[in-house]
């Protein structure tokens, strides 16, 4: 197990290096001058030269890449050109929003997708099965941004003045604020330090923050705001998980050892939960890992529609404004997160399937 894990982690290093290189090249190839796009078209040559010197843009590209690499390894992504603030601080503000959104969407997708898939497989060819599969086919074919807009219209306009009304945008109702837990608990943290950023990151996970500070009003408000974007984002993974669970479980249920388990009198519930599901889970782990990438892509669209200040939105805005440090930092964080999740999925195989360890 240990050896397998080490081998697997080492093989991710060239990919991580490639990610840094691609990110750097892409960010630098975006046409247009960051000086002009930040300071305006009227910026003089002298002003732009100073701007380039301040942001290290006057050095040759390989040198810029080496500096970038060294900085990333130290966890320093520089200052945003547009906001003139440390990128890590912006990450700490924006990343939790996207994590909260993606995780909520993934949890909805897993709970509904898994149960729908299991019911479909157990009632194979029944009305429920057919309905689930039609639903799943429609689910994977729906544009996330369209579903998001339609849900917003349905819940904000059609259900207006009913208990079903839900806010169509934002993260919190104006006037409400989520006091960070470190302030509630009276921890004197110096702003800007690494320790502060660490704690601030968790404070920006509003669900987590409102639960540990027992601020139920904020919690309910956050969940109400999160519901529509999370549902919109969850449809595609939900449909894929439902289909995968169904086909995987159908495949396993036809095996000899299931018959053997039934023959020796194992309770049907245990046959499904212990004997069948464990084997059916293997391909599901891969699919769920792969969905995370799709979720992050979908997050750009969902955040745009629901006016949420998350990673996807800021990355999209940074690309249009040529804010290199932000583009680089956020792309690296997303891609590294994606690689890490798939690494975890691979490692979970060796837990789920002991044969993988021997490979």
């Amino acid at each position, binding site marked *: 197990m240990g050896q397998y894990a080490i081998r697997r982690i080492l093989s991710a290093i060239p990919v991580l290096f490639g990610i840094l290189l691609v990110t750097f090249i892409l960010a630098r190839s*975006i046409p247009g001058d960051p000086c002009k796009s930040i300071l305006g078209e009227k910026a003089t040559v002298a002003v732009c030269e100073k701007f380039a010197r301040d942001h290290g843009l006057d050095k040759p590209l390989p040198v810029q890449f080496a500096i970038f690499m060294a900085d990333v390894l130290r966890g320093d992504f520089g200052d945003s050109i547009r906001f003139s603030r440390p990128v890590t601080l912006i990450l700490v503000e924006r990343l939790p929003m996207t994590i909260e959104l993606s995780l909520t969407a993934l949890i909805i997708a897993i709970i509904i997708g898994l149960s729908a898939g299991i019911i479909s497989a157990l009632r194979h060819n029944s009305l429920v099965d057919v309905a689930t599969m039609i639903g799943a086919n*429609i689910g994977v074919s729906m544009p996330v941004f369209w579903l998001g807009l339609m849900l917003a*219209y349905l819940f904000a306009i059609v259900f207006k003045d009913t208990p079903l009304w839900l806010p169509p945008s934002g993260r919190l109702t104006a006037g409400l604020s989520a006091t960070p837990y470190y302030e509630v608990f009276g921890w004197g943290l110096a702003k800007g330090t690494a320790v502060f950023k660490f704690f601030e990151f968790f404070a920006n996970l509003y669900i987590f923050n409102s639960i540990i500070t027992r601020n139920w009003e904020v919690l309910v408000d956050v969940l109400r705001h999160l519901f529509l974007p999370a549902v919109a984002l969850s449809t595609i993974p939900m449909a894929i998980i439902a289909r995968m669970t169904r086909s995987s479980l159908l495949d396993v249920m036809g095996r000899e050892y299931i018959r053997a388990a039934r023959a020796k009198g194992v309770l049907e519930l245990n046959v499904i939960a212990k004997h069948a599901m464990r084997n059916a889970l293997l391909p599901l782990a891969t699919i769920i890992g792969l969905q995370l990438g799709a979720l992050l*892509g979908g997050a750009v669209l969902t955040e745009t529609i629901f006016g949420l200040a998350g990673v996807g939105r800021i990355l999209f805005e940074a690309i249009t404004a040529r804010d290199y440090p932000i583009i680089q930092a956020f792309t690296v964080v997303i891609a590294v997160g*994606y690689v890490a999740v798939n690494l975890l999925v691979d490692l979970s195989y060796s837990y789920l399937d002991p044969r993988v360890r021997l490979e």
Partner: protein
Amino acid sequence: MTVAQPEVAQLPDTSLVSKPSSLWATTLRRFLKRRSALVGMGILSTLILLAIFAPVIAPYDPTQVLIGIEDVRKRTAPCIHLLGCPLDQPQHLMGIDGNVRDQLSRVIYGTRYSLFIGFTTVGFAIIVGIILGAVAGYLGGWVDNVIMRVMDVLLAFPSLLLAIAIVAVLGPGLENALLAIGIVSIPAYARVMRSSVLSVKVTEYIEASKALGAGPLRILIGSVLPNAITPLIVQGTLGIATAILDAAALSFLGLGAQPPTPEWGTMLGSERNQVFTAPHLVFFPGLAIMITVLAFNLLGDGLRDALDPRLSSGGTGQA
């Protein structure tokens, strides 16, 4: 010679014994048995007809502004005579858009763009993917390593984000969006091709072709490609669905087709702020995207089951 006659007559009646059916006949029969595949095929045929005959079917020109031609205001809700819309008003089944154009005509013309986007991006990705996968699998060694690591890096980025970044480099526009989506879809096909090459490379019939003096290109085209074609077709059909969705998303964000192009994603994107006042302008283009993508997904699943029963339905091109 008269002996031969009765012998022929004694041959078993071929109408009673099933003919040894070809691969394609078996495939077709299996395909036709699947209702969902037929539905997909039906929708797609309709869409292709709509695309070809758009000028005949569409009641208006998709870019024609109706100010001064008809008494309509911008973002008017659909007017359908059968559903009680006054007969003296001009009929617009999907309403009027923000620039006072007939939405139905625009949606019909949009079929052309969507199908074009799907086929060109996937065509591009399949060709490049086949070449890269074949080279990697056939040559092996460091070439294989370099190509597949580059593919790994491409796969490490969420596809839509990578496409956004590529479009940002190339500049917004339909062609660049197509190229970006094409590039991000290459790895899937390269992987399929490479694994086919690897599995076939060691077989005896390849050894035999080599012994007969066949060159690498001939072996790849003559012996390896036919083995890889099944998974490539399936992957390609499902890939078209994903490509259409991604292209619509890029256009929605303003990075793809530019107005006044009647592209569904663009139409949706330019009217999205009006969703609360004129939901029909968002609803119909999105519905069109969904139906088109659904057709390719159903068709892809049907083809997979028909071409290779071992690959039962499960994942989709979305992954």
